[in-house]
């Protein structure tokens, strides 16, 4: 039987020739390495949303469920500079109206996220903050392992960019994995 098995390998060499090595090399370009196969462990996740990126897709929640993090913070950020500009130009009353409307919109957006997170059996918190959209996220990311953020986060209403410039800046400054949706 040993000689038959040796015959098989001899035949293999004759038939496959160098083609086997060539094909294997081309596959190596996109096969995951042993290191890449190990799924990283993330304990805490920050989800940053705003009025432009509040529709979090279902796939993101599946990802969160897979990582089973110990804590998740959903932060809804309203641009405080816009609020300041309204106060300075239109007055305190209009600024308050803006804050109220933004807070209501935030609660509405958070409700959808809340429903999805409740179904995942993970510990989570939520907040609505008036802050600078980039520095707030960058500061918070000191305490979280992964950032989940929409491409439209911080985008102006005209939506002239496919990906918000603010997101570009955040991705460049945050030294942690970022999930973009």
């Amino acid at each position: 039987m040993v000689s038959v098995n040796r015959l098989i390998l001899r035949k293999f060499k004759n038939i496959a020739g160098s083609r086997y090595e060539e094909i294997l090399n081309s596959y190596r370009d996109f096969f995951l390495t042993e290191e890449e196969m190990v799924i990283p462990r993330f304990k805490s996740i920050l989800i940053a949303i705003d009025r432009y990126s509040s529709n979090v897709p279902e796939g993101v929640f599946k990802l969160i469920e897979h990582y089973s993090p110990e804590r998740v913070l959903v932060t809804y950020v309203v641009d405080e500079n816009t609020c300041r500009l309204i106060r300075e130009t239109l007055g305190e009353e209009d600024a308050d109206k803006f804050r109220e409307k933004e807070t209501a919109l935030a609660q509405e957006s958070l409700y959808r996220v809340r429903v999805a997170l409740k179904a995942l059996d993970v510990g989570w918190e939520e907040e609505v903050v008036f802050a600078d959209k980039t520095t707030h996220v960058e500061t918070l990311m000191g305490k979280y392992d992964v950032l989940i953020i929409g491409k439209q986060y911080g985008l102006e209403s005209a939506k002239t960019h496919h990906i918000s410039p603010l997101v570009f800046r955040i991705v460049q400054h945050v030294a942690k994995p970022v999930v973009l949706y």
Partner: protein
Amino acid sequence: MQTAELVALSVFAGVYAFIISEKLHRTVAAMVGASVILLLNIVPWEKVSEYLDLDTILLLAGMMVVVNIARESGLFEYIAIKTAKFSKGNPMKVLLLFSVVTAVVSAFLDNVTTVLLLTPMLIYITRQMDVSPVPFLLSEVFASNIGGTATLIGDPPNIMIGSAADLSFNDFIINMTPIAFLDLFITVGIIYLAFRNVISTHRERSEAIKMSIMSLNEEDAIKDRALFRKSVIVILSVVVGFFLHDSLGIKPAVIALTGASVLLLWSGASPEYALEKVEWATLFFFGGLFIIVGALVETGFIDQVSAWMMNYIHSETQAILMISWFSAFASAIIDNIPFTATMIPLIKAMGSSINTYPLWWALSLGACLGGNGTAIGASANVVVIGMAYREGVKITFVDFLKVGFVIMLVTVGVGSGIIWLRYVGL
């Protein structure tokens, strides 16, 4: 027996011995044998063109050029990744999908190229799933041989039979594809029953397995998007051409060569590179074999064997069963290409006393499916076992035999039954 006949038979037997033992590369053995035949003028030079089956050789050459150019685009790796992702890491789906894809690709491209391109992906996925790759690889091999049975261009014996008996691509679709289809699902069923205990992953890891497989990006496999598109268009056009070749009155070899020329022209691929990758060794092997078998015909040996066989064959039923089962057992041990090359003139010679039409299908069935019987029965078997061995997965001759022989018996049994029902009936 005359001297020429004795020499022709000795050369034939010697070449067969070298092919079986693999002590000498099969091409070298065939070329040396053919040279002896030509040097001794057993086949006169002016008759070489009569025995050299250019339809077969050019069809193979044309398809090799098409496949080699298409390969550069990453098309086949793309198919492998897509198949893997469709399976979503479910072992049963992997088994079924890879078997079906292998069979379909093998039906149109050569089996060795198909398994060479799909096996690395299959081994990778089974590693991800943490299951034994053996049942999956065996299923892939069997599917490749079964898929090759389905069409005129699926396996070299079919190309040779089609050319010799003037059978069209659609004749094969009508007669062999339904058999191959049925045999494929029976085979997957047998593999599942035989290995059902090892074809399962740990439930708690299924999500992680799915994620790692879904993280593969088929777009990464595409090396040249324009060539990818052109390759798909040309391959599909060639397949359509095969379906229409009979009604258009064009030989399949012409369709393949036209596809190769169009792809060379359209892609701008270097002809030196594309032609360098053609398996010249295989083509010369065919050339040598045709001359060696031609010598047996020329000396009258084939007519004598045919007359002797006809003493024992009294009906079409006997002929169908004998040819299909003899071909299957013979192809399980020896290379089905020289075997088919020998059987073709034999069946032609039987034509004077029996209807040979169903016998061609019996030969195709036995020669192609017999390859599943043993590890050395077909080139695809050897390639998959060799690749698995390089990746640390051992499939011994006996391991293969235990499953392969059962598959061969069942698939040939089903196939010969269908042929008998169709052409002889109750």
